[in-house]
């Protein structure tokens, strides 16, 4: 092996300085170096590029696209795109956000903050739905669809009639219930002056009693991170309203039987097509087909005949992981009708398919996608 070379003697380098427009600048702060200077970096943004990204909508309606929609159009769109998490009536599923209700609760012990009870600006609803929803399939809604879904959310909050056509023109007719419910940060006046005092060091209080203990509630995850959700959450969590989601690294269920090798029965093409439509409800969480990956839910390739809780690398609820058995058509049908009844403790948030026809169809579709 070659000997490790001695490091070269350090070379005296002139004070490093960014050169700009021929001027040498020496400064401790980059800002001083760049003050008033342009570096000629970047390129001009093209109008099409700005149009593609500059989609934010301001409270006065600036940025709203052309289009319109009402709650009648919005209902099926909401059912298809939003109801899996937010419920058919925007009432929320598990602890996914509730979008309707809560009027007059903001001063209560547990305020319910929804579009109707809390959101001060209509623009925010359009902006967020159009840009960031549905969860897992953002930016897929057209302007008309977004207007219709927003109208359905407003209708669910009794804020507009079902035939009220929401558009840029009717925008200002909608009154938000909590529009006047906000004040700008007043901590400087209400808190800082009070607390910028010389702190007490001795004899600051007569007695000290323990008034509450965290271990009584017992909602802290153990070191492995697995913990049952608290039965009742009196102390509402801060980050978001919450559904129990088990993080336990579940062992794959027993033996994963290989999908039945018997020749598959011929599929009903019409039923497969109908099932593909129904599957849109599932797509936010589940992938199927070539290259399907685990997302919020496990990938569903060859689900019919697959072991229950059997996909490697997916963190199932312990209920699902320990269930055992195989997803035959009967089990899938029962699960899809009422997931939480069939496997108590599943973390699948979906409430279930109400129509038997939809269940039959979606199972047929899932059979058709087996790679």
């Amino acid at each position: 092996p070659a000997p490790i070379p001695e490091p070269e003697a350090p070379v005296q380098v002139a004070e490093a300085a960014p050169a700009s427009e021929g001027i040498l600048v020496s400064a401790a702060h980059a800002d001083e170096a760049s003050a008033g200077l342009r570096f000629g970096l970047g390129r001009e943004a093209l109008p099409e590029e700005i149009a593609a990204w500059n989609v934010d909508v301001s409270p006065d309606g600036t940025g709203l696209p052309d289009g319109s929609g009402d709650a009648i159009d919005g209902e099926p769109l909401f059912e298809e795109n939003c109801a899996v998490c937010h419920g058919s009536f925007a009432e929320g599923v598990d602890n996914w956000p509730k979008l309707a209700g809560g009027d007059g609760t903001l001063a209560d012990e547990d305020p319910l903050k929804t579009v109707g009870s809390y959101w001060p600006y209509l623009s925010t609803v359009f902006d967020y739905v159009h840009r960031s929803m549905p969860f897992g399939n953002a930016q897929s809604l057209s302007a008309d669809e977004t207007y219709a879904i927003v109208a359905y959310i407003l209708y669910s909050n009794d804020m507009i009639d079902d035939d009220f056509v929401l558009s840029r023109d009717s925008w200002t007719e909608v009154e938000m219930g909590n529009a006047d419910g906000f004040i700008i940060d007043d901590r400087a006046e209400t808190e800082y002056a009070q607390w910028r005092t010389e702190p007490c060091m001795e004899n600051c209080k007569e007695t000290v009693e323990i008034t509450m203990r965290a271990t009584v509630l017992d909602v802290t995850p153990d070191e492995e991170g697995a913990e049952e959700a608290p039965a009742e959450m009196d102390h509402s969590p801060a980050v978001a309203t919450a559904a129990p989601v088990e993080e336990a690294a579940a062992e794959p269920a027993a033996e994963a039987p290989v999908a039945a090798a018997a020749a598959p029965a011929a599929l009903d093409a019409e039923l497969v097509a109908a099932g593909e439509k129904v599957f849109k409800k599932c797509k936010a969480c589940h992938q199927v087909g070539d290259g399907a990956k685990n997302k919020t839910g496990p990938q569903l390739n060859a689900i019919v005949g697959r072991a229950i809780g059997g996909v490697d690398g997916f963190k199932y609820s312990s209920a699902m992981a320990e269930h055992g058995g195989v997803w035959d058509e009967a089990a899938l049908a029962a699960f899809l009708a009422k997931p939480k009844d069939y496997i108590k403790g599943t973390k699948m948030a979906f409430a279930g398919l109400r129509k038997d026809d939809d269940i039959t169809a979606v199972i047929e579709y899932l059979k058709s996608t087996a790679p």
Partner: protein
Amino acid sequence: GPDPLITEVQEWASGLGDGVDATPYGLPIKFEDDVVRRNVPWLTADPISSINFTPIHALDGTITPQGCAFERHHSGAIELSKADYRLMINGLVDKPLVFTYEDLERFPRENHVYFCECAANTGMEWAGAQLNGAQFTHGMIHNMEYSGVPLRTLLAEAGLDAAGDFKDKWVYVEGADASSNGRSIPMEKAMDDVFVAFKANGEALRKEHGYPVRLVVPGWEGNMWVKWLRRIEVMDGPVESREETSKYTDTLADGTSRKWTWVMDAKSVVTSPSPQSPIKHGHGPLVITGLAWSGHGKITRVDVSKDGGKTWETARLAAEGEDKALTRFYLDTTWNGEEMLLQSRAIDETGYVQPTKAQLREVRGLNSVYHNNCIQTWHVKTNGEAENVEVS
């Protein structure tokens, strides 16, 4: 008798260890595998849009390694390569611009250490002592050395003559992920110390912290530190996005809510001893340590109480407080098995003294959710175990 670890030749003292090619990018040794981020599964509906917590109870010093710095995503941590990265500046600028990652690296660069704290840190404790560990009560915080470009440099490159008077102007910043997590920042702050970072603690940002580029908004709530930063728009008003209206607003007892509560007030916590870091040694010397920080500037002093706030003594700062960065404090003391109600109290350069939970509740009620910077109490028992408690 003699310690066999000393008197007997150990395997590691006679055999060989790993070669230099064993771990091209190293991970902590297996004995430290409990020092990890943890989440609280019941907090959120889905781990894709959720938060986890820095193991502050097990760290020392002030710099948070990226691998255990808390994460908050609104639609998951995305993979965005440098080659696919674009940053747009548009709106009230002289010339709307698009930068590549390489462009950003050609501007004069700065390094700064800042803390990033989620506005919801300690938010679960408003109604009472709930989570039993400093990681869970105070772990929505990290502190890193960032390398990047001041935002004002980039804005100047696009030209701000079109913006006119900065006084009533805002910048709207958004990310490239599906949530976009857009936030509005007043121009005064944007031109002050906000910067666009692409390295943390010397290495590229981790995916979960916004690789390749994130915004750093010193002293202000973490939600504004937009990750995967893709667009900056100069505007004549705030967008009032979801994240600054329906979330990150603080509801008071009468039902009205504060908005634009950006600054993180002075705060501290004893990280050890604490519920996840009990006293395991016997009586005698004990190091009490913790972290203090303020979004208003430097920490100038931290006091510690062992009796639930009856008496206080001033702790030793490991180093002089730095602007909007974590400060480590130590109280080198003696413990002889007595029960303690351990508290710490931060004071910053503006004279702000960290309040008690009772003081905060008196002004805000119980439903503020965000910005709970109250004094924390750990009940250390005679056996050295500690518990999160609330005291009168």
